[in-house]
């Protein structure tokens, strides 16, 4: 994962609530065995509507997206995060996110920033004409108009993002704990191991 620190640039003021994963990347795009190239399908149905914010020239290549409540609800498809990354988005700001999407975003180095609705509304306004900045180190979103909106982030996620850490590598550091857990588990709950099908055995 690439390290993330401050993301500054134009922000697409989408503002919609309940943007589900089928909107972010429709199912017919999921038939790929790679992570690349999904940007073409990102927000396909919205982009097909005339006057949508993705068509505005100023927002081409914008690194930030601003959305409404419950962003990324629906399926577990990580393709949603890959598609956003592929179109150049590295931060999303919304009043709330679905749990699975927030996890997928984090694992791909996309910063999912939760701010109260009034602050999101303010950013939607500012984003029409100006750049905004998301500063991970200081946990603050700023605008050229002296707005300063602080946000919370899980300390573990913050560290991983700032340092670009590989989570699997980190977990493998707990190898001895995992092995110990497996040994105790095998003694106490042997039926959980090797559940080979009896008819196949």
């Amino acid at each position, binding site marked *: 994962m690439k390290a993330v620190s401050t993301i500054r640039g134009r922000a697409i003021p989408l503002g919609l*609530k309940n943007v589900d994963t089928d909107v972010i990347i429709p199912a017919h795009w999921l038939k790929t065995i790679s992570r690349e190239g999904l940007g073409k399908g990102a927000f396909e149905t919205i982009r097909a509507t005339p006057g949508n914010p993705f068509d505005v020239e100023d927002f081409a290549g914008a690194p930030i997206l601003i959305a409404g409540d419950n962003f990324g609800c629906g399926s577990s498809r*990580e393709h949603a995060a890959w598609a956003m990354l592929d179109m150049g988005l590295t931060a999303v700001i919304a009043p709330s996110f679905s749990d699975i999407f927030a*996890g997928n975003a984090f694992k791909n180095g996309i910063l999912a920033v939760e701010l109260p609705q009034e602050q999101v509304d303010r950013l939607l306004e500012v984003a029409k004409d100006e750049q905004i900045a998301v500063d991970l180190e200081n946990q603050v979103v700023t605008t050229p108009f002296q707005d300063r909106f602080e946000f919370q982030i899980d300390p573990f996620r913050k560290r991983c993002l700032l340092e670009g850490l590989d989570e699997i590598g980190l977990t493998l550091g707990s190898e001895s704990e995992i092995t110990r857990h497996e040994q105790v588990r095998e003694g106490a709950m042997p039926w959980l191991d090797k559940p080979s099908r009896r008819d196949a055995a």
Partner: protein
Amino acid sequence: MFGAMASKPRTLYEKIWDQHVVERFDDGTCLIYIDRHLVHEVTSPQAFDALRLAGRTVRRPDLTLAVPDHNLPTTARLAPDGSRVPIADPQSAAQLAALERNAPAFGIDYIDAIAPEQGIVHVVGPEQGFSLPGATIVCGDSHTAAHGGIGALAFGIGTSEVEHVLATQTLQLRQSKTMEVRAEGELGPGVTPKDLILHIIGVIGTAGGTGHVIEYRGHVFEEMSVEGRLTVCNMSIEGGARAGLIAPDDKVFAYLAGRPYAPAGDDWDRAMEWWRSLSTDAGASFDRSVVIDAADVEPTVSWGTSPEDVVAVSGAVPSPDSFADPSKQDAARKSLDYMDLAPGTPIEDIAVENVFIGSCTNSRIEDLRAAAEILKGRKKAPNVRWAIAVPGSGLVKRQAEAEGLDRIFTEAGFEWREPGCSACLAMNPDKVPPGERCASTSNRNFVGRQGPGARTHLVSPAMAAAAAVTGRLADVRKFAPCQEVGG
């Protein structure tokens, strides 16, 4: 037993969580052991590739089971000469081939497309006894919550997490908040678990369970069949909760006994000891509690493009102005526009051209029986262009055929298909055409979910059958002598 034996009363979720903590970190994150990992073709290829790139192996192939479902066409898989029918769509074919290669390469049990046990991953897990009470179960699919119906802590994960579980058999997680959804009283005639869960999502909203694990409690769930519980827990994610579960009881144990992967002999007896301890302690508290009076639940239908957009079948399409929240009003306007519905239209006046009975929510034997009950001796209405019944697994299909249900479906004008996700999501050839409506037993009515421009109305299997017969969304209670619908 092992794990921390806390003295404080705990909820079912907390008991399972505590049991699976491998390590607690200072910041509150925990490393959680995963007992069962189900893998399908859509969310796994990138994970296997990443393992290969990093030179990693699958830590516990014995705790992992792979089965294709999402992409697989539901038409005949074998030609008359016994050869495999090729998959027409090259991308689907590549994805399916990748799973077929990856599973044996990493030592994982693989149920192939023509095996009698093949089916939708969330139907197969419990049916094979691979999913067990008190276990942590994950799969790269958000409806993994279904397995909570047998008392497991089950939730969907993204592909990076799939890779993480394959490599380490653990996940780094933070403990969720707890939410109780209690349903007391009795469900009325014709009201099924599907209606109940749609009603619940209507009450709590699609973000109502975000950050929480739901435990469904109370008389209604105690009385409910195991299959009904799987339906309810399946849709927890539509209420925003990553997992939903129900304390396992004798019904669950009877359901699992003798299943191929389930424990047997002494192991079974030892397992039962732990399983019987799996309920929320008296005095344990939930972070949030919602109470539903079962008598308030009617056969329920979705009218919009979010699973919280539900209404009783006896009702009408709501007016966007009837919502207090301005953003909800706006969303409702967009939904109605997409659905081509006018406020005030009685639900029973809405004509459908398509009927889909299937998906991991409603494709088990009880679902097919409930639909067949309505269809028996009847035919689909002339305006219903396409009606399909797609069993959740090969075993469900065989059982249904042994009971003669397939003939009831085909005589009513339904196509009787091979198991798979089918028209639940537009990834395989089963799609609803643009602008057409579908009464569907699946779980999501999102824009384009059943195909670009398709309009979905979520219903129970019996209601889908009633819609097929009348050609409109219909109240199943007006049909046939209503059965006792306990589960």
